[in-house]
Structure formats: structure tokens, C-alpha cells
């Protein structure tokens, strides 16, 4: 089980503990598989982090061994990383920042491929 911040969440992860809002109300039970819609809704409710299972494949840095990933899983992970980088760089117009975004994508993908 890992506690993940909202930007580290992605579809397919499963909540390991009930998710509570600031007033202590349960907004999501444990054992729920996350979808894009759920993640957005949690964000709107001001949730900042949740405990999930299946988080170990969401960041290249937690990948000690990528050899076990299938081609489809590698492609999916690459897409998720591209999406995360696009989200982080949302609204950036500076040419050098956009070059940084592309360099980050290339680097993260090279770790997975």
C-alpha cells in the first residue's frame, strides 16, 4: 500500500483505505478501482492524497525492474507519463519550457522502453 498525492494517481489503482474529506465524511470506500472521473471528483473535493494499491507502476522511479512489463503495459505507462507531464506543464508557453517538457518525456520513456 502506498499513499499517493493526486497527481500520482491514475486509472486502475485501488483505494486501500476509505477516503475522507476535510470534515471527516467518507467520499470513497476502500476497494474502489479509480477511474479518470473519480480522480477528478476527488480533486474537486479538495482531497490531496489517498492510500492505494497498485501504485508501484505509476512512476518510473519506483520501477526497479521493468523487465516484467508486457509491451502493452509499457505503452500504457508511456502514455500515462506523457499525460502527467502535459498536466504539469499545462499553460506553459515559453519555448524553453516546452523543450524541457519534451526532454522529460523522452527521458522517462527511455527508462521504460
Amino acid at each position, binding site marked *: 500500500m502506498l499513499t499517493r*498525492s*493526486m497527481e500520482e494517481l491514475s486509472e486502475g489503482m485501488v483505494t486501500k483505505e476509505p477516503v475522507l474529506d476535510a470534515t471527516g465524511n467518507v467520499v470513497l470506500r476502500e476497494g474502489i478501482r479509480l477511474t479518470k472521473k473519480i480522480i477528478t471528483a476527488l480533486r474537486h473535493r479538495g482531497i490531496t492524497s489517498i492510500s492505494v494499491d497498485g501504485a508501484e507502476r505509476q512512476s518510473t522511479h519506483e520501477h526497479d525492474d521493468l523487465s516484467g512489463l508486457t509491451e502493452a503495459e509499457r505503452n500504457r505507462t508511456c502514455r500515462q507519463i506523457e499525460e502527467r507531464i502535459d*498536466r504539469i506543464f499545462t499553460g506553459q508557453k515559453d519555448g*524553453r519550457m516546452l523543450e524541457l*517538457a519534451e*526532454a522529460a518525456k523522452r*527521458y522517462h520513456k527511455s527508462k521504460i522502453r
Partner: protein
Amino acid sequence: MRQHGIKQVLATIEGLPTLPDTLARMNVLVSDPDTTARQVGQLIASDPPIAAKTLKVVNSPFYGFPTRITTITHAIVILGFSTVRSLVLSSSILQAFGDKSCRMCTKSFWKHCVATGAAAKVLAQTLRYLALEEFFIAGLLHDVGKIVICGYLEEEFREIERLVNEKNILMYDAEEEILHGVTHADIAGALFEQWNLPKGLVKSVTYHHTPSLAGDERRITSILHMADVLARALMRGNPGDRRIPTVDPQAWDDTGINPRELDHLLPAIDEEAEKASVFLEMV
């Protein structure tokens, strides 16, 4: 006016950590030119948790020495005063803030700080600076102000978090709004100044979001500013928001870093951050 605001915010904080004793005594010792390695070694050894943490880092892949270093005095002889002082500084501050039980103080947050330190070190090395540890420490400690806000200004922190989530903005921008122009950078800078920490560290931490304002420390602040951004691009850890600050155009010029170099820099920083992960064991 702004200075007044920072003082006001700091004044409202009760129970803020004081300068760790070992660090305070060490600052006095190293300012005396007659101080010997043995004296500094004895001082550090008199604080077993700090001594143990310092030796742990000295013997980690961060330095990669082939043989084990078992005494602080030996570490000083090999690494020098300045490096060991930096290690004591980081151990003491991580000890002071690391166990603060607040939502911000997570492994993931410190992972971002370690990555920023690694990025600052790699950038400084690329730019042929010598005191690389000082850059690393500045990166490691650059966001300590967020811990102060989260741990000591809980109500304001909740508001900041709400703004960050609602508007998808940087914590820095949310802090400015909630704390009336004061940010985590100002708070950490003011605290470090109060603790008489080195001027370069104080200034670079204070202006790591606004390097153009750092005066005579502008170039090293630009390195820290850029390091924070590169650590975010590497997505190592969680700085508390989901955006990346735009690198100040002046910082690109001050550092002379060309975007074409990023393909070499990012892997080098990632590798350095991995080596530096021993610092995560200190919190």
C-alpha cells in the same frame, strides 16, 4: 512592508524550532581559524544521532568511498570542514523538521527536496562550481518553509491546499494570496537568517522562485531555481502542487544552460538523486 509581513507571520508561529545546539556550536567553532579537525570531530561525536547520520551519508553511494569511514574526525580529514559542516547542517535541520507530524511532511515531499538538491549539485558541477555540497544542501532545504506553514499555521495551510486544488496553481502563488504576500520561501529564508546560516543559503532559499531579486547571490539562486524546476520535470516526489514554475528567463541566461543540454542533464540528475536517497533515511 514585505519584510514586516514576514516578521508578522513568524511572530504568530509558536514553538518554532530553535537552531539545533550542535549546529550553533559548530558555527562558532568553524568561524575560528585555529579550530582543528579533532575539535569539530569531538563536537559532532558528542551528538550521537547527528554523528550517526553524518557517518551514514559519508559511507553511502552519495560519496562512494571504497573503504568504510568510521569516525567523524576521519570524515573531516577526507571531506574537509566545509563538507562535514554541510552534512551536519542538513542532518540537524532534517532532525528538527523531519519528524514534524503534518500532512506536508511525507517521504514524497522529501524526495522532491532530495531531487532538487541533486539537480542543484549537477547544475553547479556543469557550471564548474567547487562547493557542490552547498548546492545540494540548498536544494534539500529549499522548501522547509512549506513544513513550517503546514506544521505551525494549520488553518492557513488548509486554505492554501484548497486554493492549490481548486485553481490548480503553485503553492507559492496560493501562499501569496493567503499569507498576504508572504511565501514558504520568505519563511524559510527568515528562519535560516535567524539561525545565522550562511548568507548564500539564506538568499538562494529566499529567492528560489524569484532569482532576479537575489542581488549578489543571483547566479547561485538561479541554479537553485532551475534545479527545483528540473526536479519537478523528473517527477521525483511531491512538492505539494501539480504545476511546474516557469524558469525565469534571466536564470537561463545566468546559468547559461541550453535546452539542448537537457537530454544529458536529466539522466545525470536522476542518477544523482538515486545516490542521494540516503538523505530520505534521515527523516
